[in-house]
């Protein structure tokens, strides 16, 4: 028997108070297997011990919500007896240590969360953040992560349709890889993880268990230091082919209506799936690890319980249905093994090689899990005045610098490595405000987006929290869909620091206000804390994955100018808010002051109005104004079909008008024949707008300056290739 020493307890990330509680509850010293189980279940990653208190404050309900947080993924009603199932999850720490496998298994994990609920995955999105471009590891991490995401999703045959990429020094030693998956299921065919039926079989399916990923959840809950690369063996290795087989086998079995409960083995592997399934059913579970299919010889109970080998599922079946399931899994050449039974003891009992390795009351693991209301400090964020050193420079020459900067240039290099067209349902390709995926057997589409604005959150967490939700909502509005709900991936630093907890609290408060106001509840999510290296935390990064419904597949909008001589209208007021803009960050290199404020009243009013114009087929070209401001937005609208613009502007401070990032704004282009009607409606509703000019073929004209669309496009599209071909 391994002696449980203080050092061993510490290595498992268990605090002294937590260990005392374990001793008291068990009334004895834990075995090493039990210590491992506590360590995994009580890790920040699995227990949400620092964030639970705050997450509970977010709204999670609406008329559309079928399942909110607490299951493998959230579920919303999309009508026609169909439901959309979605979630976003982080895989930050593994991706920094081993970018290809870390990112690939991040995608694999989120896919399983979706199909374990009975939904066929229909789209993937991802939000990835790297250090500054001059950092020695950025190229290596960028290329590894992108090929890892592609490697997994492409092989699975699920299109990767959207996302975002950011470079910022705050991620120099702690990149972020957040993957989101959206699936579609029949509304009455959703599968849950709550076990039921004493005596029912606990069945293991999928790949074999190996020694990879042991303690992944604990690693993901600790800060990094210079020796983090030594942790490489804790990164799991992905096998998308096995996952594809697992997907098809599960889909085939789910048609049979015999699964009582199912959950994937994700973070903390067999431990968390067994504990959560039995716990939700208020039952006990007894496992015999001799029956777990293992990849390696002589694996201990500790290793089997904590392995994070990928592509595995746990399900509950009635014993007389085992054969039906077994036949299907054998057809797909996957392991199938009955590894235990449900009991009425409310205990987790682990047997291995004729020895009892663990015996824990489930309540202690679940309800006994620590929950901390960590102290936090709210900073007072001050406004400051920005010195614009480019007041004499011409706007189009500034535009060229902006559009050729790492955070505004085209992401084509990234998404061309992802199969974004497989399944032939992708109605809007990547590179727009939101993607749209058709839903088979209906005339509907699902719109989806993944977005965050960490620099706003760092400079005012409350306003930043509001903004990230509002922007996701705006993205879904821009394509003409009804925003329904969000998933969130909360990436923050060390919660034991008051300032970081202050950021977390502020962002949650802001999100809560926006979610409530916009009727845009949170249905699933994930928290990733301790994103720090050598004591320096990342910018607070709440990534929002929004999902909406396009009611009629033939009526939607995209962001690209399609004709010349369309009128260009700006919906919403422009005050010229420059602090915390991309202009300030990239060109003025000055990160002071407050982010733009989100006026939720205007947000709602302007957004619903734009959506109405799209749904009435009065407009088909809409882009929300976000990073980079107005001029960047209309330039992004120009480059796809080579329709530029001719605008005349007389403004006192032209730069702040063109590059300010005031919220609740959209650019729309209106055909001459519809202009009168659109103007009438705008005036009738009292919505602020400006008609700034018209679209023209091939050229970009601003007052007395002129350039070709082609010139701008070259700058826009070549940044990644140029950057990656430079010798580092």
């Amino acid at each position, binding site marked *: 028997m391994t002696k449980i020493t203080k050092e061993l307890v510490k290595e498992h990330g268990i605090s002294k108070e937590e260990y005392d509680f374990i001793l008291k509850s068990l009334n004895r010293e834990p075995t090493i297997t039990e210590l491992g189980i506590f360590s995994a279940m009580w890790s920040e990653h699995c227990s949400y011990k620092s964030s639970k208190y705050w997450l509970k404050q977010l709204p999670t309900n609406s008329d559309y919500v079928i399942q909110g947080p607490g299951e493998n993924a959230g579920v919303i009603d999309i009508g026609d007896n169909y439901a959309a199932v979605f979630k976003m999850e982080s895989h930050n720490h593994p991706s920094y240590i081993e970018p290809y496998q870390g990112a690939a298994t991040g995608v694999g994990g989120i896919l399983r969360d979706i199909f374990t609920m009975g939904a066929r995955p229909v789209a993937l999105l991802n939000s990835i953040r790297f250090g500054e471009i001059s950092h020695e590891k950025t190229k290596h991490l960028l290329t590894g992560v992108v090929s890892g995401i592609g490697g997994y999703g*492409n092989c699975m045959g699920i299109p990767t349709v959207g996302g975002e990429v950011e470079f910022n020094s705050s991620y120099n030693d702690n990149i972020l890889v957040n993957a989101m998956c959206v699936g579609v299921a029949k509304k009455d065919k959703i599968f849950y993880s709550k076990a039921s039926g004493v005596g029912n079989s606990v069945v293991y399916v999928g790949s074999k268990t190996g020694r990879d990923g042991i303690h992944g959840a604990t690693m993901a809950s600790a800060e990094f230091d210079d020796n983090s690369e030594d942790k490489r063996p804790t990164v799991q290795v992905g096998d998308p082919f096995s996952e594809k087989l697992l997907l098809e086998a599960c889909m085939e079995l789910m048609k049979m209506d015999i699964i009582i409960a199912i959950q994937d083995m994700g973070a903390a592997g067999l431990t968390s799936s067994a504990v959560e399934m039995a716990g939700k059913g208020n039952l006990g579970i007894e496992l015999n690890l001799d029956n777990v299919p293992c990849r390696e010889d002589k694996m201990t109970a500790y290793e089997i319980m904590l392995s994070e080998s990928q592509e595995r599922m746990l399900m509950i079946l009635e014993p007389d249905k085992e054969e039906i399931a077994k036949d299907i899994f054998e057809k797909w050449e996957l392991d199938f093994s009955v590894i235990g039974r449900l009991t009425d003891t409310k205990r987790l009992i682990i047997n291995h090689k004729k020895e009892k390795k663990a015996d824990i009351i489930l309540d202690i693991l679940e309800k006994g899990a620590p929950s901390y209301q960590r102290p936090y400090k709210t900073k007072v964020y001050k406004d400051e005045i920005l010195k614009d050193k480019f007041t004499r420079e011409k706007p189009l020459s500034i535009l060229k610098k902006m559009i050729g900067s790492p955070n505004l240039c085209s992401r084509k290099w990234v998404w061309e490595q*992802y199969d974004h067209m497989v399944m032939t349902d992708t*109605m809007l390709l990547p590179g727009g405000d939101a993607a749209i995926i058709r839903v088979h057997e209906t005339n509907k589409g699902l719109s989806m987006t993944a977005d965050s604005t960490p620099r706003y959150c760092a400079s005012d967490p409350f306003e930043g929290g509001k903004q990230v939700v509002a922007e996701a909502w705006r993205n879904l509005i821009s394509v003409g869909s009804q925003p329904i709900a969000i998933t969130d991936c909360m990436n923050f630093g060390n919660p034991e620091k008051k300032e970081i907890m202050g950021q977390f609290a502020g962002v949650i408060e802001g999100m809560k206000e926006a979610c409530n106001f916009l009727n845009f509840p949170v249905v699933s999510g994930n928290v990733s804390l301790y994103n720090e290296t050598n004591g320096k935390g990342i910018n607070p990064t709440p990534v929002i994955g929004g999902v909406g419904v396009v009611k009629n597949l033939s009526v939607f909008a995209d962001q690209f100018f399609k004709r010349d001589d369309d009128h260009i209208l700006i919906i919403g007021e422009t005050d010229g808010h420059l602090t915390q803009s991309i202009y300030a960050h990239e060109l003025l290199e000055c990160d002071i002051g407050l982010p733009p404020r989100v006026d939720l009243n205007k947000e709602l009013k302007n957004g619903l109005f734009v959506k109405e114009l799209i749904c009435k087929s009065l407009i088909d070209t809409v882009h929300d104004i976000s990073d980079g401001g107005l001029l960047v937005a209309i330039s992004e609208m120009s480059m796809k079909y080579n329709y530029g613009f001719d605008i005349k502007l007389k403004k006192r401070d032209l730069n702040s008008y063109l590059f300010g990032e005031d919220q609740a704004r959209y650019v729309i282009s209106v055909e001459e024949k519809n202009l009168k009607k659109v103007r009438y409606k705008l005036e009738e509703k009292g919505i602020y707008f400006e008609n700034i000019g018209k679209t023209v073929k091939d050229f970009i004209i601003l007052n007395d300056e002129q350039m070709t669309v082609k010139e701008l496009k070259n700058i826009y599209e070549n940044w990644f290739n140029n950057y990656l071909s430079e010798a580092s």
Partner: protein
Amino acid sequence: MKASVIVFPGSNCDRDVAVSIKKITNLDPIMVWHKETTLPKSDLVIIPGGFTFGDYLRCGSIAANSPIMIDIIKKAKKGLPILGICNGFQILTESGLLPGTLIKNDCLSFICKIVSIRVENNQTSFSNKYKKNEIINIPIAHNEGNFFADNDTLKKIEDANQIIFRYCNVNGEINNSSNPNGSIKNIAGIINENGNVLGMMPHPERATCNITKLYDGENLFKSLAESLF
């Protein structure tokens, strides 16, 4: 009229191609599991795209040895039309039904985008609905689409008009800058000597609907459906 769509472990364009042919033609798709040893009665066989067996060995090499392939090879030799798309093309070269091989893209990464290809030979049952030299827009999505053959093989397929599609630019010009993956002579699709087995890297099934707003793949399926009567 029936079209067998072969499903291997790791096929992922099987549904897409079945949906397309059902929509455009009067062919009825039947999904055939790779472990079957005889094809159901079919007028056409489609080997769809995907990552059969994970492409962990050379792409298509394991699938080329699946039980169903024996019957497919036998019937191909008797003239049954076979269409291999993307991974299906790789399976056809691995099984010896088509010459040449497909190696890693010269950019060394996966590429998914809409490209232009030129119809080089419209005198086949797969391409007779196109005009000769017609430029069509069609998506590609592959990691190993770089067609290669030795000089003798290449000369043979060129002389016999077996090259059906080549990558080109929007003006139909065939050059290095219009070659997405490094394929020799910009080859995107070839046919066998008998004219009944076609392999192509681009995905015609992704260019058959108002969802993608691409329609240029429709004529391939229409050509097939009509010539089967």
